[in-house]
């Protein structure tokens, strides 16, 4: 399974490298969202600082929707799904590989958005360990859930509008957990944030296991 996962992850990342959709479209879009939040809430700088965690993770989720939609589209073109079924690749490996590629792309976007939050919202970075662990756990949860739901809506004509409708409610606990953990870290009380990290890690594990188990059925059914 791990060999298949590495193969699929490498393919998805190579596709992104060649197409430059993430760097030329998704990244500018997510920075634009941050800027629009700043326009909407400025000149109340204190309010921006207080809401920075929530705004940051909302921007991450918007960017994630685009990255997930793009990831699902890779396997929908010109008979690729049939070729995957014929290849004998472990469906769990396909799931893990696709989720890993989405997670790597998201981590890159999160770093970019983190810089944006510091520059635009004037946030002082604190509690780095909590921030990193919370971001990793939330990213895995978002990538795993997104990959699973991307396969679920695959092949439907309305998939682009249906995906956010299905995915965002499921990701609400991740948004809440990550925002609370970041708030605790930035407020200098990391002890309040670690329980939220535990919740995020639990969600990441749950979604990853569910995805690995269900992906084969979704691949056959689409």
């Amino acid at each position, binding site marked *: 399974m791990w060999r298949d996962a590495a193969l699929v992850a490498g393919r998805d990342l190579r596709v992104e490298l*060649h197409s430059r959709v993430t760097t030329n479209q998704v990244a500018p879009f997510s920075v634009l969202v941050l800027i629009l939040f700043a326009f909407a809430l400025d000149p109340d700088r204190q309010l921006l600082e207080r809401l920075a965690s929530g705004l940051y993770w909302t921007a991450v989720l918007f960017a994630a929707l685009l990255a997930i939609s793009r990831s699902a589209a890779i396997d929908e073109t010109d008979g690729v799904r*049939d070729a*995957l079924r*014929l*290849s*004998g690749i472990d469906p769990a490996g396909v799931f893990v590989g696709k989720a890993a590629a989405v997670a790597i792309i998201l981590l890159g976007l999160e770093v970019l958005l983190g810089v944006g939050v510091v520059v635009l919202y004037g946030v002082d970075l604190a509690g780095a360990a909590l921030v990193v662990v919370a971001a990793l756990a939330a990213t895995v949860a978002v990538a795993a859930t997104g990959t699973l739901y991307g396969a679920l809506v695959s092949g439907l004509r309305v998939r682009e509008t249906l995906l956010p409708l299905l995915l965002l409610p499921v990701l609400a606990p991740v948004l809440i957990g990550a925002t609370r953990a970041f708030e605790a870290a930035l407020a200098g009380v990391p002890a309040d944030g670690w329980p939220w990290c535990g919740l995020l890690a639990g969600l990441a594990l749950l979604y990853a296991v569910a995805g690995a188990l269900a992906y084969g059925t979704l691949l056959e059914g689409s």
Partner: protein
Amino acid sequence: MEQVVHLRAAVALLGRFPALAGFDLDVARGEIVLLRGPNGAGKTTVLRACAGLVPVVRGEAVVLGHDLRLDPRPVRRHVGLLGHATGLFDDLTAADNVRFWGRACGADAGDIAAAMALVGLDGRLRNVAAGRLSAGQRRRTSLACLLARRPELWLLDEPHAGLDHETRDQLDALIGRAVEQGATVLLASHELDRAESLAHRVVELAGGMTVAPAAPAPGMSRAGMHASPTAPREAPDPSPPEVTHVA
């Protein structure tokens, strides 16, 4: 002789609709069998059913010793399907596509390089994004993906479509070489002159789902129904193939 494909009264569904109803087909190892029939006769469905991509819900369906009705997945790794869709990623180069699908099927670097060389995928063409290739070049890339996995059963749906004359000849030679090495070929084509000269037998699909008994193709009419995989082929006979239709 070992049966590679055995379908008896096979019923296959596309969604809720029966695409095959009571289909019979036996193909022995080393044979090249042509499926012939009008559009909508079910040729593509037969190929996809043999690949385990379309579920057979009734009848007998055994491919390469695996019962498709019990679990079609074990057979998939051993078949190669060249269909209307190419299975290529437009943003990856032709070489990256062949490498990915080759490695996915367990091929080593030597097999992958040999497959690319066999279809003339070399030089500048290897590094062109698949989305920028012509239809014929995409077909060749797709064929290289199939060759890299060294399938036991080749399932070819309109394999000559979109190819120039020279590449068609190369494809026919590749099919002949694969059969000499023990592969079995089931193909569907509307280019009857070329396909019939290639095939050992012709199976006629008529009335949508019903199949006529297999008859020798013109090129094999004197060689018998089951030619040896290594036997030299006879020159094509210009007379039309003997095919019996079943109403």
